[in-house]
């Protein structure tokens, strides 16, 4: 196994609407950068393997796993995290719907689910129950049994 010294590069991207620059190893994942470097911890780390969806962010408006996105792939793009949904510090309607419907228990899955929901509603404002389930099938929640999550999403569809 190779044990070189760290490679560090500078990356510029738009984070929650604001241009940012970070100096990190280019093969750091976006998740590592958000949490361990920028300490922006709304985005959660549930597995690091693309299996749980807790790390979901929007990359140029599409839901992706930040744990499977290299910093080099973020260069020049726009990233939205759960913190970026707040408008003048008031919650997005998806965030409110999750909170009010009882879709949040331990809440560790919640930011990822909210981002996946947001992406769904941006491309399909009036999804069917089946479409909601497809869109959220990669977001694991161990607490709620998903019933209230479904309810929350259906509450905000047009």
């Amino acid at each position, binding site marked *: 196994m190779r044990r070189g010294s760290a490679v560090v*590069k500078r990356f510029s991207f738009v984070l929650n609407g604001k241009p940012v620059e970070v100096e990190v190893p*280019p*093969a750091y994942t976006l998740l590592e950068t958000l949490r361990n470097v920028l300490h922006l911890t709304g985005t959660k780390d549930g597995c690091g393997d693309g299996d749980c969806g807790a790390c979901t962010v929007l990359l140029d408006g599409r839901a992706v796993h930040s744990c499977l996105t290299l910093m080099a792939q973020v260069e020049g793009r726009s990233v939205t995290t759960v913190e970026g949904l707040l408008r003048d510090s008031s919650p997005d309607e998806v965030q409110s719907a999750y909170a009010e419907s009882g879709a949040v228990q331990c809440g560790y899955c919640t930011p990822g689910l909210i981002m996946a929901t947001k992406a769904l509603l941006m491309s399909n404002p009036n999804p069917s129950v089946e479409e909601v389930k497809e869109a959220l099938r990669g977001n694991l929640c161990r607490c709620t049994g998903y019933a209230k999550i479904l309810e929350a999403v259906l509450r905000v569809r047009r």
Partner: protein
Amino acid sequence: MLLYDIDVITPSSLDEALEILSSRKGRIKVVAGGTDLIIQMKDGIIPRRDLLNIYGLDELRYIKLDDNDMIRIGALTSFSEIASSETIRHYAKILADAASTIGSIQIMNKASIGGNIVNASPAADSLPPLYALGAVVRVASSRGSREVPIESFYRGYKKLDLAEDELVCEVRLRAMSDDEDGIFLKHGLRLGDAIAVVNAAIWVRRDSRSGLFSDARVALGAVAPTVVRARRCEQLIISKKLDEDSMWNAAKAVLESISPIDDVRGSAEYRREMSVNLVYMGLWELTHRSG
């Protein structure tokens, strides 16, 4: 193992990418969506190498239907794009169906068809449809480009007809016409995101007068080192009247083409049975459709 000591080089064009691949032959690894590669490198399954990040090469992201009724899909095209493309849904529906089962939406948004092809997992969901539709892969290097039929692209478990300086650029398929039909089947261990225990794709052409299948291709995944065609099974459904018995007989003939192994998702014996049963279910569906 963390990837902090891995350099990542991001070319701005396909030509530049091919240049770098040829000058650093074997010492650099392509990363497209990264959904296979990042995990494999972190887990030490593949050697640690610097990365050539082609994720931003939008010139490899397209779905086109050309004048010769050929569908051309750029290697970086994501499975979300494939699953939602009108062209694919209409002219290569089984590929769209397969695409929509790949991982989760987050995976589909990032995972590329080129990555699925080159990663060469025997369980890769796009491959049985590509086999069944007779796809052709176009690869390029700074030396030029060439085309390889999908079946000869694979020479064994993760052994490809792909040189170290070559990049997969495109997959090409013939658009299906109205007398053709097909089905994609995937048996996973849960309804959500799951890797296939066995997957299969069946393509048929219906003879308009007899209603029988005048041609057919059956491909199965996760049951051999590469995806396989079940040729004996194909013979048993071409120009035959299919009733319960003959469908079961044809389905059982897939056993001649497969050589599954035990793994964490299922035993070889179970995979054998699933291959037969999946193909039976597929034939049942196809024969019960009006056509």
